[in-house]
């Protein structure tokens, strides 16, 4: 096969990434026009079109040519990638909708925001497609750089700058650790391609000190990105300080990208599970307990969702731990495949509920008020019933109450780990989930049963910013999240054709 035909095949495998890049570059080129005047209305639709276009290209491509390696083994397309990418791009599109309203109401809108978002999404896609640790690193960095900038997008807001700085410094440390781990992997396996790493592990590379160090550094680097205990300290500060729309985006994007990459890496090194499985199990258990415990004490909803995110990272790590069972008989193999499908579904449910919840906060924010605390939600069910009950639904989904998508996701991961025979993890998961219900229901209590602190708004809403928001981007995002959360909670099979991971 000649180089050009090969290249066309390779490029069509990363078509969603190319679409994202293309639209991002168009936005950057047009930035001077999109910054002010009539053009400024065009930036958000362009960003949304980029994410949606990539999603459509992905869905069209998923019918043929899967399980291929691209670019001489640097990347691949398989069902884990395509299902993860589906969740990621859907989340990206919803985040654009949230950003459109929130940025405008807080006077932060600039076309660069959407370009950076799309580039960040492309990084996460690259990370999921990586068949080589260096490509994984490259994708991780591309994703993270965008997220650092988005966290500090409110440049004149000290909190936003501080969030960006903290996120950046800890993120940079994590990526340095990861690169060192990749370097050590190269020393052990003489290659960073996952198939070669897998055969090196089969030869016992994870019994050597260098191999052990490499595996642990990789695990630590990825745990930073998903904010698992004890590498979670940045997350509450970043969630609180970043503009709400950026928080929604970075919380979901980083988690989806890193977890899918995590699943792939751990699946690759399953042969040496005795080295890394205890570490992952410990981190998962710690994350579930610590995240849920500290979340109880929070009065700022963004911080609470950050700690709940830590707990969710723990639940997702349970799925990652299942990768270690792959070589333990047929039950173990079954558990690992179930866990992959479960994790992707979990990520979808999490993204929908989280973007919905941050969307509600964005909906309530205006030029001079950034809704963040429980008090801002007080009595929402009576003052603005539609938004209030949407928030209730998202909280129930995050808590994992039946008939919501969150329950199905949690159940799938739980079932996978039980199939794998790890009772300790399953029990911890069940107990901490019950613990989590408390603080999610407290939000519900504030919304439904507390009296609104502010006087009841006039029919036009309150004050200047009271133009009807339901028709704007965030209204659409909340509606989509609501419908999908209930729909997937009742009919999870509706989407299984996109989300089932086949091995």
């Amino acid at each position, binding site marked *: 096969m000649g180089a050009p035909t090969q290249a066309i095949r390779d490029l069509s495998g990363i078509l969603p990434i190319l679409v994202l890049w293309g639209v991002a570059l168009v936005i950057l080129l047009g930035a001077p026009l999109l910054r002010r005047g009539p053009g400024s209305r065009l930036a958000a639709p362009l960003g949304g079109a980029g994410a949606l276009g990539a999603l459509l290209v992905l869905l069209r491509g998923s019918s043929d040519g899967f399980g291929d390696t691209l670019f001489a083994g640097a990347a691949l397309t398989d069902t884990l990638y395509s299902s993860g990418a589906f969740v990621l791009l859907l989340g990206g599109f919803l985040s654009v909708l949230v950003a459109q309203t929130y940025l405008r109401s807080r006077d932060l809108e600039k076309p660069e925001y959407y370009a950076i978002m799309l580039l960040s999404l492309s990084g996460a896609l690259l990370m999921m497609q990586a068949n080589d640790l260096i490509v994984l690193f490259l994708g991780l*960095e591309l994703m993270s750089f965008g997220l650092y900038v988005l966290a500090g997008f409110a440049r004149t807001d000290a909190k936003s700058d501080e969030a960006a700085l903290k996120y950046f410094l800890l993120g940079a*440390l994590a990526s340095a650790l990861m690169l060192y781990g990749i370097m050590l992997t*190269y020393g052990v396996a003489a290659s960073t391609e996952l198939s070669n790493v897998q055969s090196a592990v089969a030869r016992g590379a994870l019994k050597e000190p260098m191999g052990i160090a490499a595996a642990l550094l990789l695990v630590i680097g990825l745990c930073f990105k998903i904010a698992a205990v004890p590498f979670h300290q940045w997350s509450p500060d970043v969630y609180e300080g970043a503009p709400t729309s950026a928080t929604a985006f970075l919380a979901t994007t980083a988690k989806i990208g890193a977890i899918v990459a995590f699943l792939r890496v751990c699946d690759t090194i399953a042969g040496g599970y005795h080295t890394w499985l205890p570490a992952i199990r410990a981190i998962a258990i710690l994350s579930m307990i610590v995240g849920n415990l500290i979340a109880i004490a929070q009065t700022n909803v963004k911080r609470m969702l950050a700690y709940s995110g830590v707990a969710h990272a723990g639940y997702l790590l349970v799925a990652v731990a299942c990768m270690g069972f792959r070589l333990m008989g047929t039950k173990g193999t079954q558990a690992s495949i179930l866990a992959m499908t479960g994790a992707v579904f979990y990520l979808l449910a999490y993204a929908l509920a989280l973007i919905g919840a941050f969307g509600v906060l964005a909906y309530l924010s205006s030029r001079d008020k950034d809704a963040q605390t429980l008090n801002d939600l007080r009595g929402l069910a009576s003052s603005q019933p539609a938004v209030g009950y949407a928030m209730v639904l998202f909280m129930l989904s995050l808590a994992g109450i039946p008939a919501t998508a969150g329950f199905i996701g949690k159940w799938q991961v739980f079932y996978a780990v039980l199939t794998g025979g790890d009772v300790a993890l399953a029990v911890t998961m069940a107990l901490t989930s019950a613990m989590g219900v408390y603080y999610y229901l407290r939000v519900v209590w504030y919304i439904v049963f507390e009296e609104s602190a502010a006087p009841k708004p006039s029919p036009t809403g309150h004050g200047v910013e009271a133009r009807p928001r339901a028709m704007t981007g965030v209204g659409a995002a909340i509606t989509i999240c609501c419908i999908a959360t209930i729909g997937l909670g009742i009919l999870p099979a509706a989407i299984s054709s996109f989300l089932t991971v086949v091995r």
Partner: protein
Amino acid sequence: MIGLPYYLVVGSILFGIGAFGTVTRRNAIAVLLSVELMLNAANLNFLAFWRFLTPAAMEPHLFVLIGLTVAAAEAAIGLAIVLNVYREYGTVNLDQIAELRG
């Protein structure tokens, strides 16, 4: 003959200095420098592995180039963030940049 272990030791010392600096320095720019040191430790070891383990392979060179590019992009973004922080706080001391608590 200077063998692979020497390079690895130098690399791990660099990495150690970087890690130590990241944890102990309170100046945001010094932390950034420490992180760059850690990245360069990895780059150095990549080349050492190429020289002694896989002299025929070209990948390590590319890895180093990728590492350098990533480090440069990281530095640019980091400095931009630090500048913004300095505008708001008037300092780059991490202990004094602490509005977010809870």
